[in-house]
């Protein structure tokens, strides 16, 4: 079976300096991915089309590009649903990096930031000796997702903070930073956290979640950034305004239950700097947006929120371990909630089976008979 697939591609000719949106249509097998379709366009229609590719199986990270404005790996994106819906997607180069030609971007800014986070283990010894350094599964859980990164650049392409500040370290480099901050064997944890807490670092993320949503490998870079923030505060590294801002939310929640907004600015910026904000604060007050000092705005049953904080401290899942716990909680909700669903139920993963059993739904019935 074959299908007709149409694409619009933003072409860029670096010699003439011209951009143009061109439409192509090819016959493709129904299993074709976006990368397969680009190959067909290049083979049959226009050999000058430029894009990167290598492995074709989602592991080399070469074919990052945008489809309808969102970053994808071309080799991971099947085209049958899109073609059958009659949709003509717009293919363009990744964002936040200069275009060299058509869909090929200059990744140098990306690599520069990866290099800036010292992406290698600092074990604190020159000679590893004969002994094997085994890391427990529990300690690997903290950096498992970060280890999945294939450095395709999809997250950097989507980063809204980097669009505003091109020097922002960005999701890929920060996730790589967490990969080593969280490594039980690394001896440079505090130095790394101090470095990453500086200007253009951890606290400059605006938490738009685009990186997390569009990473094709499940690295969850925003969670990596949150892990770094939590680890930095655990080490007492809190001089950045972003860190102070985050800490005030914790103080608020465990005291009144609600964000104590009036104090947020001085707690974040310091008294001297926040005096500049007096005019702004007066404006808020005029519009009834500043709470009256009495009675204090305290959440109903706030005792529960306070007790939860004490409970959390007893559990000792400080820092990045809290993010790992959230992942466990989500998977539990998904698989073991009150209406627990069979993870191999209809429409989910294929049920594992032995040779001879065949990929069937009624494995259990067959076993009984």
């Amino acid at each position, binding site marked *: 079976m074959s299908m007709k697939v149409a694409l619009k591609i933003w072409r860029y000719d670096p010699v003439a300096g011209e951009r143009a949106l061109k439409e192509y249509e090819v016959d493709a097998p129904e299993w074709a991915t976006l990368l397969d379709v680009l190959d067909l366009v290049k083979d049959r229609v226009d050999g000058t089309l430029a894009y990167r590719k290598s492995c074709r199986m989602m592991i080399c990270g070469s074919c990052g590009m945008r489809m309808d404005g969102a970053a994808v790996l071309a080799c991971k994106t099947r085209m049958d649903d899109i073609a059958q819906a009659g949709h003509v997607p717009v293919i363009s180069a990744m964002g936040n990096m200069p275009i060299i030609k058509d869909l090929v971007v200059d990744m140098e800014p990306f690599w520069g930031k990866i290099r800036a986070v010292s992406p290698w283990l600092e074990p604190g010894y020159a000679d590893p000796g004969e002994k094997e350094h085994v890391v427990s599964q529990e300690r690997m859980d903290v950096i498992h997702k970060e280890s999945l990164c294939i450095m395709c650049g999809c997250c950097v392409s989507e980063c809204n903070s980097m669009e505003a500040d091109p020097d922002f370290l960005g999701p890929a480099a920060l996730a790589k930073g967490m990969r080593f901050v969280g490594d039980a064997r690394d001896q440079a944890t505090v130095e790394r956290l101090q470095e990453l807490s500086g200007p253009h670092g951890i606290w400059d993320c605006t938490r738009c979640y685009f990186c997390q949503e569009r990473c094709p490998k499940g690295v969850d870079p925003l969670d990596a950034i*949150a892990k770094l923030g939590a680890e930095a505060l655990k080490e007492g590294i809190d001089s950045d305004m972003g860190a102070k801002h*985050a800490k005030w939310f*914790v103080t608020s929640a465990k005291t009144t239950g609600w964000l104590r907004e009036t104090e947020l600015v001085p707690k974040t910026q310091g008294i001297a700097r926040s005096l500049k904000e007096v005019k702004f604060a007066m404006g808020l007050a005029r519009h009834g947006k500043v709470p009256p000092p009495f009675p204090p705005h305290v959440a109903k049953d706030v005792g529960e929120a306070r007790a939860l904080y004490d409970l959390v401290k007893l*559990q000792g*899942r400080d820092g990045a371990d809290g*993010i790992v*716990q959230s992942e466990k909680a989500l998977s539990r909700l998904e698989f073991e909630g009150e209406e627990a669903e069979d993870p191999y139920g209809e429409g989910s993963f294929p049920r594992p089976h032995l040779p001879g059993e065949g990929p069937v739904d009624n494995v259990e019935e067959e076993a009984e008979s």
Partner: protein
Amino acid sequence: MRTVAYYKGCLASLSAKELDTSTQALAPKVGLELVELEAVTCCGAGDIHEAEPDYYLHLNSRILRVRGGDRNHSLSGLTSAR
């Protein structure tokens, strides 16, 4: 009219209360009756997520439990170690 739980949160309560005003005004027009949750707290936005992730998980599990109406329902399903 469909009844839905309404969690207003910190900003819509105060410094961005236009959000609350317009939500309250629009809801009946799209057939929603808002039931504002009592006894809920700040969700922590991204800030507690980055400062104290385990507290963030517990705070929000509690808010969702209030939404469910069953205040005695155990949180352990979400928050116990495993």
